[in-house]
């Protein structure tokens, strides 16, 4: 009996020469990276434009209102403000490529230094939030799909809906009122109580890790009591999104024929869901988690304001309110780059993990 095997076509079929592997790699890289680079360029342009639109005169901000005309002109020339716009943009792009975002008005230090100082606080918060959101969100989504239509499903969807619809800064406020002011279970605003502030040796900038490495368990507990509420609130938003998407993906898989096959073989419903269906959504869920991380940046802006968290979000908000052009532009660009990178990561994840796209 003829055995027609329809396998993946190999490139040495017949006498064709093998395509140059270097060219192939370049083509793939080009296909993926080029749009990203164009987007980043557009990002730079957009942030530059926003920066130039800020209503506050940077020269006045530095020199004050009473500067003489000569001092004003000198400063303006020093800042490059007398050159045509496209020239300024060119300087700006050059600066970006060497990671020079200029000086921040508020601190007088280079923006990049400021960002490096405040970023770890936000990363620590966001990472803990994602762990909460994923750890609870993925199982919740899977269980909701498994018992679709039941009260478990309705309950999970309802909780998710609240996470979607509630303003997270309000939840933060209410959380502080309840758990801090009334019950005293957790620490208040800020990363750490004042009395411990000088006990920390910032090695990584992540207080939880720093205190754990040093074995400073009392300080660790204090840090934890401060971070747990904002991280939970941020995580709640992530949980809502992740569980909703996971549920949606799982429902799609559970309607497929191979699920019936698994049950026909004699698999229990639980094993069918986790061993067979779940592996088919892992890639999609991973991309959702990566995207959630990006959304957390957005949530962090408001949460950090409520909890007086000395992180990136608060820095950006301050910069916007004060009109610190360099800081605003630098921060916006950074946010954009992170977002774009995460999207790129998602794309790559698909290509690597789904054997069908290879």
């Amino acid at each position: 009996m003829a055995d027609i095997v329809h396998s993946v076509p190999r490139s040495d079929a017949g006498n064709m020469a093998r395509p140059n592997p270097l060219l192939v790699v370049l083509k793939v890289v080009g296909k993926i990276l080029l749009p990203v680079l164009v987007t980043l360029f557009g990002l730079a342009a957009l942030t530059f434009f926003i920066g130039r639109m800020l209503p506050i005169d940077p020269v006045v901000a530095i020199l004050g209102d009473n500067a003489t005309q000569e001092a004003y002109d000198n400063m303006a020339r020093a800042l490059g403000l007398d050159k045509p716009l496209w020239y300024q943009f060119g300087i700006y792009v050059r600066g970006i490529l060497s990671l020079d975002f200029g000086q921040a008005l508020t601190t007088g230090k280079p923006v990049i230094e400021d960002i490096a100082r405040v970023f770890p606080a936000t990363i620590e918060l966001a990472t803990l939030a994602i762990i909460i959101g994923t750890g609870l969100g993925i199982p919740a989504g899977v269980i909701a799909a498994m018992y679709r239509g039941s009260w478990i499903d309705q309950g999970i969807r309802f909780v998710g809906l609240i996470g979607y619809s509630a303003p997270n800064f309000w939840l933060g406020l209410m959380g502080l009122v309840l758990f801090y002011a009334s019950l005293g279970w957790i620490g208040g605003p800020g990363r750490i109580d004042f009395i411990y502030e000088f006990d920390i040796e910032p090695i990584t900038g992540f207080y939880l890790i720093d205190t754990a490495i040093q074995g400073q368990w009392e300080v660790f507990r204090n840090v934890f009591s401060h971070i747990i509420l904002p991280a939970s609130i941020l995580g709640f938003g992530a949980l809502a999104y992740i569980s909703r998407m996971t549920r949606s993906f799982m429902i799609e898989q559970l309607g497929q024929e191979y699920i019936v096959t698994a049950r026909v073989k004699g698999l229990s419903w639980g094993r069918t869901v986790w061993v067979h269906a779940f592996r088919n959504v892992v890639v999609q869920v991973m991309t959702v988690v990566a995207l959630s991380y990006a959304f957390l940046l957005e949530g962090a802006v408001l949460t950090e304001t409520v909890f007086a968290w000395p992180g990136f979000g608060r820095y950006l908000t301050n910069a916007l309110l004060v009109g610190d052009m360099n800081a605003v532009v630098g921060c916006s660009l950074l946010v954009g780059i992170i977002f774009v990178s995460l999207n790129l990561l998602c794309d790559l994840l698909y290509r690597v993990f789904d054997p069908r796209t290879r």
Partner: protein
Amino acid sequence: MDKPLIDVKDLRIRFESAHGSHEAVRGISFTIGREKVGIVGESGSGKSLTGRSLLKLTPKGAKITAAHMRFRGTDLLAAGEKEMRTIRGNHISMILQDPKYSLNPLMRIGNQIVEAYRLHHKARPAEAKTKALAMLESVHIREPERVFDLFPHEVSGGMGQRIMIAMMLIPEPDLIIADEPTSALDVTVRRQVLTILDELVSRRGTGLMFISHDLNLVASFCDRVLVMYAGRIMEDLPARDLHSARHPYTQALLESLPRLDHPVDELKVPLRDPSWLNGSVYHNGALI
């Protein structure tokens, strides 16, 4: 012949929905022994549902009732989920229609077959792999080692269906339900797959419930034919007696099939008589 494997009496499957309830299967009775029984019917006749109800894997919202529904000694209706799991795969298996969709796309073929075996037999992975390879050979797959590591999308339809057969027969069930096993395949490949199925089923004395809409196919392949229409069995007779079918629906079906030995200018389209919905049915040529 010994006791029948499947003994169903007055099976009814009802769907409740917001728009009211609908009875998809309306009181059918049949037995299946160690023979090949074909169930023929058009879409909506309830034939697939009947197959799934034996494994209690009907869609959500379906309510199964019957006077009795037995597999050998076991009462399938009363059986709980745990008991059903010992029956599924082990004693009753089912081959689904389209291997493109019925195999897990992200699991290697070999692993899927091994899983089917290890669910019902305590075996070490190496042992199970050997069995799986042997099974792949028995469905005439050359290079079973290579196919073992492939993903379902890397094999053709015909091969996929053979893999499905291997997977479903590896635990050596007593009864196979084949739900349109060749409908998704190219016409040229159908015969191949059916021959393999026939070989395996005859060799082990497994019962076969062959569900299809293709009367020709069923007639040539099966020992007995059940004709279903609108949720009821219109006629139940041996395949060799099909030419003398009594029910007008069966006759209409036969007449609408093109035949090389009786060429006609126009094929007859079966006209559905509403009296068939609740009218008389035939068993082995006799009115019941």
